[in-house]
């Protein structure tokens, strides 16, 4: 099942974000930013920066040695009694899970939050096969009940108020629900407990895969991750191939960064380590390693650091664009700055290319990324791909943008033309000038001046430089 290639119109999406979602996103992302800062201060900025650099190097080492670590991981998992499957794309994952479910006559499936599963629209596919996995992460449970989509990488129900959720529980669960978060949580707890106990299969994602011992690492807070991977007799984990790390020392570094970046806690409430099968646990453990375009990202040397991501959501929380509009406007399971570079590469620039332009390149995301992904650099690289095309993509930017880029490149390359251009600008701007400012420009530049004025083109750096040089040489 592939998505039809309809272009994501990011600009139009941002104009359709309801006010309550905007307000909730702004409030919640700002809280998250403060909490992350406090966590960094507690551990010490100097140590934090050393951790980030180490984490970056560990992750880059891992993905540039995937051909070593994936087979090693596979041996270890198999030795420990688990099954390892390799899936090229979404359809293979569906086939594998349906096969396992049919073989064991599975009727009830419980599921933890997993972005990979959203990437491949797993729930929809399983539904057509008569199996509906129940989301058990509270935010995802709410989003599933509402028939909607997550609006933030790690905080899926961020955009819902407690009043909305109370009303939702009343309608869909038939319970009398006051708009109090603790009470609403209790209602979900009771309802989901029954499901955990009767499910025949639990599906999870995975935060890391430790090659050294074949261990799956799950970082959670609620306890549903533990429930889904302990109680049902079958556990299936779907994990992207890029999640591999070499050893437990690597995991120690990454765990020190992950929870602090996501919620500002030192560690999440539960960090679970699962190696194959064990007495008293699920009878069968299946690990599905998914490619779905990751090897293509690996091939592009300028963009492969996209794969370092450990899915913390810190970039989304600090992004001034994301703060204003939330995740739904990205129309992708991966939103915010990481979504802006990952979505075009996974789903194609024809579909998600707009997202690479959805940034002011302020660089805040790169400052907070725990694995130091150079997001602005990759955004520029993807913009170039959209405009010029390369070995991976045909150009998809509109003709006007491509022509404008060509003209700009030509002009900037010849010093005489550049200088002529700056002189012409001083004349051309006159009709639009009001004192020191250009408050309104004609299309397409009116997009800039819609919300703020442009300062007038006045200073002449070359003239100043010539004068300075003359003074110095005199």
């Amino acid at each position: 099942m592939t998505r039809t290639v309809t272009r994501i119109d990011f600009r139009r999406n941002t104009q359709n974000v309801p006010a309550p979602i905007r307000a909730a996103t702004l409030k919640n992302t700002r809280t998250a930013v403060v909490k992350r800062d406090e966590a960094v201060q507690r551990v010490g900025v100097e140590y934090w920066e050393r951790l980030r650099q180490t984490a970056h190097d560990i992750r880059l080492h891992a993905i540039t040695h995937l051909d070593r670590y994936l087979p090693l991981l596979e041996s270890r998992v198999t030795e420990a009694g688990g099954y390892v499957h390799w899936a090229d794309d979404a359809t293979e994952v569906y086939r594998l899970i349906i096969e396992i479910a049919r073989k064991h006559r599975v009727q009830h499936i419980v599921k933890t939050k997993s972005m990979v599963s959203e990437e491949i629209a797993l729930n929809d596919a399983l539904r057509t096969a008569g199996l509906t996995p129940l989301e058990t992460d509270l935010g995802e449970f709410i989003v599933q009940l509402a028939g909607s989509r997550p609006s933030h990488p790690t905080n899926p129900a961020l955009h819902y108020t407690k009043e909305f959720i109370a009303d939702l529980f009343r309608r869909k669960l038939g319970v009398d629900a006051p708009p109090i978060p603790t009470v609403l949580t209790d209602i979900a707890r009771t309802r989901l407990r029954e499901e955990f106990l009767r499910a025949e299969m639990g599906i999870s994602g995975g935060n890391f895969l430790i090659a050294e011992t074949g261990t799956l690492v799950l970082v959670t807070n609620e306890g549903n991750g533990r429930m889904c991977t302990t109680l049902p007799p079958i556990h299936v984990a779907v994990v992207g191939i890029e999640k591999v790390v070499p050893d437990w020392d690597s995991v120690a570094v990454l765990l020190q960064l992950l929870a602090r970046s996501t919620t500002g806690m030192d560690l999440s409430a539960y960090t679970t380590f699962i190696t194959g099968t064990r007495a008293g646990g699920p009878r069968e453990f299946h690990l599905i390693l998914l490619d779905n375009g990751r090897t293509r990202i690996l091939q592009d040397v300028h963009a492969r650091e996209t794969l370092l991501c450990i899915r913390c959501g810190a970039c989304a929380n600090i992004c001034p664009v994301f703060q204003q509009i939330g995740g739904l406007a990205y129309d992708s399971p991966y939103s915010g700055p990481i979504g802006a570079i990952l979505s075009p590469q996974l789903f194609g620039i024809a579909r998600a290319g707009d997202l690479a332009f959805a940034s002011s390149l302020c660089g805040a995301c790169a400052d907070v990324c725990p694995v130091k992904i150079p997001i602005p650099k990759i955004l520029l690289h993807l913009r170039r791909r959209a405009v010029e095309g390369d070995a991976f993509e045909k150009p998809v930017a509109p003709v006007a943008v491509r022509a404008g880029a060509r003209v700009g490149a030509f002009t900037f390359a010849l010093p005489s033309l550049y200088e002529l251009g700056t002189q012409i600008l001083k004349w051309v701007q006159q009709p639009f000038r009001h004192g020191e400012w250009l408050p309104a420009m004609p299309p397409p530049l009116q997009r800039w001046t819609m919300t703020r004025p442009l300062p007038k083109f006045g200073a002449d750096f070359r003239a100043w430089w010539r004068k300075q040089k003359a003074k110095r040489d005199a």
Partner: protein
Amino acid sequence: MTSSRETILNRIHNALRESARHEMPACPDEPRLAGDETARLAATLAAIESLSGKTRRIKNQSELRDALNELVQTEHIRKAMLWENQFLRELGIANLLSELDVELVSLQADKHVLAQCDLGVTGADAVLPQTGTLALRATPSQAEVVSLLPRVHLAIIRPNDLCADLREMLARIKHDSHAVLITGSSRTTDIEKTLALGVHGPKVFHVWSYEPSI
């Protein structure tokens, strides 16, 4: 016909062929807590309190009995399960609970029966004072469900359990098939960023340190 495994590994091989591979870095030493065992246990308990856990320091059997009595009364404990390991046997937890009219459920029971327990009592395989984290290995006698299903989880820790840093804690559990690091209570802020405890895991988390020498 090439399997997906071969296809994927071939793609990786081709992708990495032309480029420089990145070397594995050295990992920085983690900040450690100063002080002796008593101080570090105190720090552990303080960290757990800040994460909404409830803590106590136990010096002897008499205090243990009183503490359990108080717990059973306050939390209305009727059924309990516990780790069937040497430490808890030495403490006589099972007997103490029976004396308080608490029904003990065997770890061999069906999961629906286990889910009816109000209290789960465990030890810990490792403790990290910097973050108040407890590491629990899952084995047949240290079943995962004991610290997961009941409404109340009581963990009893000892000076011996203390680790210097996270790397040491992980080294203690890496060769087992299943382990969990517990840092505070089950929690979520999914609804309007408001903290709610005890989502799917235990609602109440008690950690007692057993320090007979102090």
